[in-house]
Structures are given as C-alpha cells and as structure tokens.
C-alpha cells in the first residue's frame, strides 16, 4: 500500500461513511489465572507460572476463578449491560502452538453481559454514545517468540520459544455494536471510547489496563459504505492496536486505505491487518475465509454460571464513582472552566492532575505543568502524557519549590527537564544543576550595580520617576545571573539604588 498514494482523509469522507466495530481485550488483575491457581504476576521466568491445567496437560481440568466472574459482572454493570441469568463457557477450537489445549475457553452465544452502552466525550465537549454488544470472559494464550529471523516475526525465524505464563490469564472481551454516524469523527470516537473504557476499568479496580503492558488491547474493525447507503461494506480487522494514539491513527489510515481501494474500483478483502506504530500504516495478515471455523460448542468441563440476582444487585450497589461522574466532581473541585477541563481531558491528564493535586500542588499549577511543558514533550516524542518519566509527586514538589520561592518558572522548567532526563528527584536536580534562586543581596548587589552602570539612560529615566522602565534593568540582572536571581528582590534592590 505504501507505494500507492492514498486518497486524502477529507476526500475519503466526502464519498464514504465509516462504520467501526471495536473489540477490546482487558487482562483482569486477578491474583490467579482464570481456570487454575497459577499466579498472574508479570515478568516472571518463562514457564515458571504454569501447572497441568494452564499447560493443557492430558487429564487436567479447569475451575472457574470466582473473582474473574465478579470482575466481568462489574464491567458489564458499569457498561450498562444486562447480566445473564445463566451463561456458559464455550470452546473456540483452533490450532496454535501458544495455545496449550488448542482450544480457547471462551464464551460464544451466551456472554455474561450484553446490550449496554458507554457515553464518551469528544474533544469539542459533545457526547457520543457507543452501544455495547457484549462483554464476555475468556482466557489468554501463551506467548511465542520467534528467534533467528531479522524481524522477530515468524517468517524467517529458525525456531520459536513458547512461554505459557500468560496462558490462562483472565480476559474480558468487550465488543461494540457497529458504530455508525460518527462520520469524520470516527477515529476520534474510537480513541475516546478506548480512553473512556480504560478509565472505567481502572475506576472499577479490575485491571490496571496498561496498554503498553498489553493489559488492554484493541482490535479496530472498519468498513466503508458510500455516503447515503445503509448496507455495511466489507470490513478489515486491525489487530492489537496498543495505544490510544494508535487506535485513532489506525482508524484514520484504514478509512483512507479502504477509500483508495474502493475509489480505484477494487474490493476490500475481509482480512486481519497489522498496525505499524512507526509509520501509522497497516499491512495484511492472515486472510480469513475458510480458516474461520472455530467449531464452538459448550465447554463440557465447566458447569453453567448463574449469577444470583441478589449478588448482581450487591455488585451494582458497590460500583465505584464512574469516570464521568468523577470528572464533573473534579472540575468543580478544581474550579476549572468547561474549556479548561476539556483540555485536561483531551490531554488524558485527569488522573495525573488528581494525583499531583493530592500531593499538594495547587490545581492551576498542576494543570499548567501537565498541559504545558509536559504535554508539549509528549507531543514531540509521540508518547502518552502518562508515560513521561516524571511522577505526579515530582511535579507537585516542583510546584512546592516555586511556591516557596526557591525556584522561578524558568528554573522550574529546567528542574523538570532534569527529572525527565533521569537526573533524579527535583531537589537532587536543583542541587546538582545549582539551580536555586539567588536572593542573597550581597550576591545580587554586584549584578545590580553592573546593570545600572551598563544602562545609564534607563537608570536616568527611572531616577526621573519613569519606574516602568525598570523591566529592562531587571532583565539585565537576570541575564548576568543566568536566570537564577529572585526577580522581585532584584527589582527592590534596583529601586533602592535609584531612588
């Protein structure tokens, strides 16, 4: 595709109407796996967190993790879903070496939660309702690493290594109904939906939902139909899009790619596609035609799940404050205008602000740093704001140093730069870089005298009562002290000398 020039996004939307389906997998943060007692801790020695059941050894049997079921119900309730009175697991049969049983224990036509919706807020402050088809429980597969090839992909590899630590970790798959009517905002809706879902999952405490750690993974299904028509076009399924930004980019690229193919008189092939973070494009993976038969049937090794209504209602009553409600509360607490709050949301900075403020920073200061300096850096490096190597506590410390008069804004920026560069805590950066504000009169005296001597005209004006001209002299002092002087003190000293 990369050699063919793409139809522009605007031209694509001029002719076509995008329809999206989003499938999000969330790894639950349960202590043990979905069907056995093995730990789910990340980062352990390969295959050290396995047992006969999650290795699929002959004779082994699954036992459902009750916390997993509870988490699924919580997610279903938070997504305004109906909770099944009776549902079953099913086997999804297909061969792959990292799947120990060569079937995935999943749910098929009897999901635990179905028919819900999630309202998401777009950048202009408007709300878009994404309808939820279902949320169901399943288990994760193991992990294959392909060794010996240049690309790390299976093609060209000499051998593959299998790690089954991940096999059997509980997953919730959340599937939207076809998202129609988003038009040119489809990529934005996709991103906003995944962001909102991520916040929701975190608020529920069922998963950290870290996309960078694979705890939340998104598949973007997309099709185009000519404007004004209602029949869905053929969809592509872009798998494992693993950041908010990528979700938006993948949707955008696929809209352009589909439009290019369709405009050219071609047909879209139903296929799996891979998204490439580096250039924002997708390439074809496995073609799905006859390979698609998973031969689902009810899992005979497990008994049906029939959550008692009283239990479901208890869980409903215990649901935490949901993100939308929380946002409204925080906006009031922080005394932000709608516009300012929206900018915080757009930057994905709500949690960061909340934590920074909780660590003692004033709301306006916290907002200023996260949405200013730090957002700019995130943008420059193409990373998420939350991924910046600085913690809310560190930002709060910088704010405190400014409030104490130990740093001015310019110095504070340098301290933040130092923290980001890995130079340690803010106080350590101040010390190592020698960035403390100079307000000691004897140290400043020479610089003040120098500034007056260098700028006799301005000095004269001030002596004549034109005090507003003092800015130029303050600037000169700041320059000679490399910005470390306390500007207010400098001004006082200048006035004293020139009065």
């Amino acid at each position, binding site marked *: 595709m990369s050699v063919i020039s793409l139809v522009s996004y605007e031209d694509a939307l001029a002719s076509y109407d995008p329809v999206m389906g989003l499938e999000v997998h969330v790894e639950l943060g349960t202590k043990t796996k979905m069907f056995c007692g093995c730990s789910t801790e990340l980062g352990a020695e390969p295959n050290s967190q396995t047992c006969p059941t999650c290795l699929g050894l*002959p*004779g082994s*049997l699954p036992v459902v993790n009750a916390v997993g079921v509870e988490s699924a119900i919580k997610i279903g309730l938070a997504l305004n879903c109906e909770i099944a009175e009776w549902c079953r697991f099913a086997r999804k*049969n297909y*061969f792959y070496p990292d799947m120990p049983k060569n079937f995935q224990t999943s749910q098929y036509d009897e999901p635990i939660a179905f028919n819900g919706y999630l309202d998401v807020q777009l950048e202009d402050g408007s709300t878009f309702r994404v309808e939820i088809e279902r949320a169901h429980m399943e288990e994760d597969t193991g992990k294959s690493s392909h060794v010996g090839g240049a690309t790390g992909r299976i093609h060209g590899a000499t051998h*593959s290594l299998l790690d089954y630590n991940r096999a059997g970790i509980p997953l919730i798959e959340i599937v939207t109904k076809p998202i129609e009517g988003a038009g040119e905002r489809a990529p934005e809706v996709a991103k906003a939906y995944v962001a909102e879902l991520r916040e929701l999952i975190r608020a529920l405490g069922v998963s950290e939902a870290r996309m960078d750690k694979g705890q939340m993974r998104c598949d973007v299904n997309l099709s185009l139909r000519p404007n004004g028509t209602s029949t869905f076009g053929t969809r592509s399924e872009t798998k494992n899009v693993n950041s908010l930004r990528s979700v938006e980019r993948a949707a955008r690229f696929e809209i352009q790619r589909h439009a290019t193919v369709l405009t050219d008189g071609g047909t879209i092939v139903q296929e799996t596609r891979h998204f490439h973070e580096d250039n924002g494009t997708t390439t074809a993976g496995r073609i799905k035609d006859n390979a698609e038969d998973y*031969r689902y*049937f009810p899992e*005979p*090794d497990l008994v049906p799940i029939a959550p008692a209504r009283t239990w479901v209602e208890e869980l409903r009553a215990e649901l935490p404050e949901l993100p939308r409600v929380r946002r409204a509360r925080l906006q009031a607490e922080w005394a932000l205008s709608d516009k300012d709050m929206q900018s915080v949301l757009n930057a994905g900075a709500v949690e960061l602000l909340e934590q920074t403020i909780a660590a003692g920073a004033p709301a306006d200061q916290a907002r200023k740093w996260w949405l200013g300096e730090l957002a700019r850096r995130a943008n420059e490096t193409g990373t998420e704001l939350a991924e910046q190597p600085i913690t809310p506590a560190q930002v709060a410390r910088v704010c405190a140093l400014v409030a104490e008069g130990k740093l001015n804004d310019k110095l504070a920026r340098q301290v933040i730069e130092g923290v980001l560069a890995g130079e340690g805590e803010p106080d350590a950066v101040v010390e190592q870089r020698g960035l403390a504000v100079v307000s000691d009169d004897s140290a400043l005296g020479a610089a003040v005298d120098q500034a007056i001597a260098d700028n006799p005209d301005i000095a004269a004006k001030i002596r004549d009562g034109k005090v507003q001209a003092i800015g130029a002299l303050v600037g000169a002092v700041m320059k000679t002290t490399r910005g470390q002087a306390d500007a207010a003190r400098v001004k006082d000293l200048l006035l004293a000398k020139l009065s």
Partner: protein
Amino acid sequence: MTDLIRYTAAETATAIASGTVSAVEVAQAHLDRIDAVDKKVNAFLHVDTEGALAAARAVDAKRAKGEELGPLAGVPLALKDVFTTEGIPTTCGSKILEGWIPPYDATLTARLKDAGVVILGKTNMDEFAMGSSTENSAFGPTGNPWDLSRIPGGSGGGSAAALAAYEAPLAIGTDTGGSIRQPGAVTGTVGVKPTYGSVSRYGLVAFSSSLDQGGPCARTVLDAALLHEAIAGHDPLDSTSIDAPVPAVVAAAKMRDIRGMRIGIVKEFAGEGYQAGVMQRFHESVELLRELGAEVVEVSCPSFTLALPAYYLIAPSEASSNLARFDAMRYGLRVGDDGTRSAEDVTALTREAGFGDEVKRRIILGTYALSSGYYDAYYGSAQKVRTLISRDFDAAFAGVDVLISPTTPTTAFPIGERADDPMAMYLADLCTIPSNLAGNAAMSLPCGLAPEDNLPVGLQIIAPAMADDRLYRVGGAVEAALNDKWGHPLLEEAPAL
C-alpha cells in the same frame, strides 16, 4: 501362595489387617502371576514392580506401628492407563503419548494411594478409550482369559482381563459408552459406571468430557462397592464433580434383600442382534429377581433407539476438541522436527503417525459434526436426543427402582471379527450408552454362560443418578443367589491359563 491371587479384595484386606499375610506377600503373589500369564493375556502396558512393593511395604509398616488400616489397605489394583500417575507412564493406549511421564497424579490415583491400595501397573485399553474390544490399542490386543482368541471387551479390556486372569483383585476402568460394563460382561466380572460426577475426572485423560466416568471393576459386587467408596466423592478440581455424600454402596452390597423392590425390563433392549444365549440368561435373571421377591415389570424407553447415533455425534465432537492438545509441542511423540519444518507440519506429521485409525475416524467425525452449518443438524440434534433419553429414564424411574437389560447383545467375539466393521463394533454398546448420555449409574455383573459358546453373559442394572446404592443392593442379592445356585463364583469355570 497361589491362593492369595484368588482372594477377593475384602478377604485380602482382612488377611492383611489381621496379620495372616503381609501386603508385600500379596503384592509379590500378584506380580508373580502377572509375570506368569501376562505374556499371553497382555492386560498390562506397564507393571510398576518397585512402586507396588514400596506401597505394600508402607502398608505393612503402618500395620507394624499399630496404625489403623483402611478397608482396602494392601489390596493390589490394576489401573486403566487413562488416569495420570506421577512418575509412571500414561499412554491411553496411544503412540502419541508414548514416553510421556505425567508430573501429577489424578485425583483418583491419589485417593487410591491414600487408601493404601497397591497399584500394580497400568492396563491396556482401546486408544483413548475409543473401542469395544481393546483391539484399538497401539500396543497390541488383550486376550479374554476365557478364550485368548477372543476380545476382552473395551475400551477397558485390560482391566477386565486382569481381574479374570487373577492378576489383580481390583481394577479401575472408565466408562464413556460402556467401557467398564461391556468388558465386565464379556469377562465374567463386575463393573460399575457410577453416577456422572461422583468420581473425579481430574487426571482422567478426556475422551468425551460430558460422558467419561471412572469406576470400579472387581470380581465381586462387594469388592466393587469397597473400591467405589474409596474413589468417589467431591473433588474441587473437577467442576462437574457432585458435592454430595456418596451413597452407602458397601452397606447396600451386603443387604442381600430385594423384597418389594420394583424392577423394570427395558423393552427396547431385545430382538434382532441379541444372541439367543444372552437373552436366555437374561430371562433366567428376571425369573431369579422375581423369586427373590422383586416385582418385575416391562417399561418402554422409546428414545433409547436414538442413543447410539446421538452418542456417535456427541462423543466424537468432544473428542475432536479434547485430542487437539496432542500437537507435539509440549509432551509425547514428535515426528518430523528436523529443523526444516514448520510447527504446523510437525503437528500434522505427529498426529498422522501417532493416532490410530479409530481415533482419526472419530476426530474427523467430530470435527465435521461441529463445523459451522452442520452444528445444529448434528451436535445440536444429538443434545436434544440426550434430553429425550433423560426424560425416558425419568419416566421409567417414576415407576421402578432400577432398570435391567443384557449388558451387551453378544458374548465375546473373536479378535479381528469386527475390526474392519465399525458399525458392528459400535453395536456392542447399544444397551450401555443411554446411561452415559443421561449420566445415571449402571452396573454389569455375571449372570451365567451362554449355552452356545460357554462364554460369560452380563446382566446390566441401571439406577437413577446418585442412587448408585440400588445397583449394589440388587447386584449383591443376584450374585449371592447365583453363587448359591452354581455352588461357586462363575469365574471358577474359566479355563486355567
């Protein structure tokens, strides 16, 4: 010493507990017997001499310390090679698992060990329990001790033959469509399929998960009951395990009183295909039950005629999925891994080489039955038939305490006779399959020799789910009456090996 191998399990346990004989002597006697006859019978795939003697020594040590021994402590047992045994090969009669040493014990294995039962070894079976003759074992057929040129039934032919050949007083089988009862019938031994969910399937290598059930095999009804109580009971590792007390089967086996019990003859289990001598012994059993004071009536279970086709959709469907894990990646056979082939090719080559014809036939059948577009017509319909069969049982049990039928339509057939005719082979399980589909309990016990071939005939008793005790009550009474009539247990009429 030869006497030791002819003891019942109950007698053996009593003798060991009283110090008349040591557990090691008992184990050694059976190991010697295996050594002497198993080349002919081929009941065992693996004999664990060291493990058996060590287990026996542990029982003797326990007794020497004055500790209390369980009701089966020191009694030798032959374990079907479909239950995992830590450190001991488990093949399921298949080449694909050749060389695999399980790292864990099945719950059943662990319970046997806890009970002080001495596991002699692992017994031969149709590959992955698919078959009715043990001819489908990758490691050669087992002979029927009544006539070594005939089949011992299947899939648990090895366990049944071990009992009939006095290689062990107790054995474990699994019954998916009759694999405990039909071998019991054709070898003149007792076999029980407990209620589905009453014996843990954890560590039972799955053939058809919704049908498989482990159970006791023995030479007497009481011995089967003792073993039943040792292995049954809730297991949190098996989600389909029933969390309820095990019916008092030992007490029931000792009652020997069936006066006033109502017994139903399943009308559909007769007619074409049923050997005359089998029906003759069956009708005599009916008369015997009447003489013993039971009320016998005929009942109709019309949907039982659909059981065989439903079974041959459900069992292969589940098997096609259960056996998918044998992919050469983690354990067992690996063929073609020469550094040039893909994982997919190695899996295909391994499955081609490692599975036998009957297993392949059922994987193909099941894969087809589950495929999209066919699911409703095949698997879906079969599940509906299953419901109909359960309803027929419910209706029948509303009027009677137990049902009876011949266990299998014929006596043991010659090895090779049905090997190329799957349909003829499948008919051996005609009378046993409905209980697997419904999940209730059933027993086979010897009721005589067919006059035309002097081979054992089995009487099947069927009880509602969790009423396993009724099997033992009726079985115990019938066994006692027949032994009185014959003057000895039927098995004593078997020719010497």
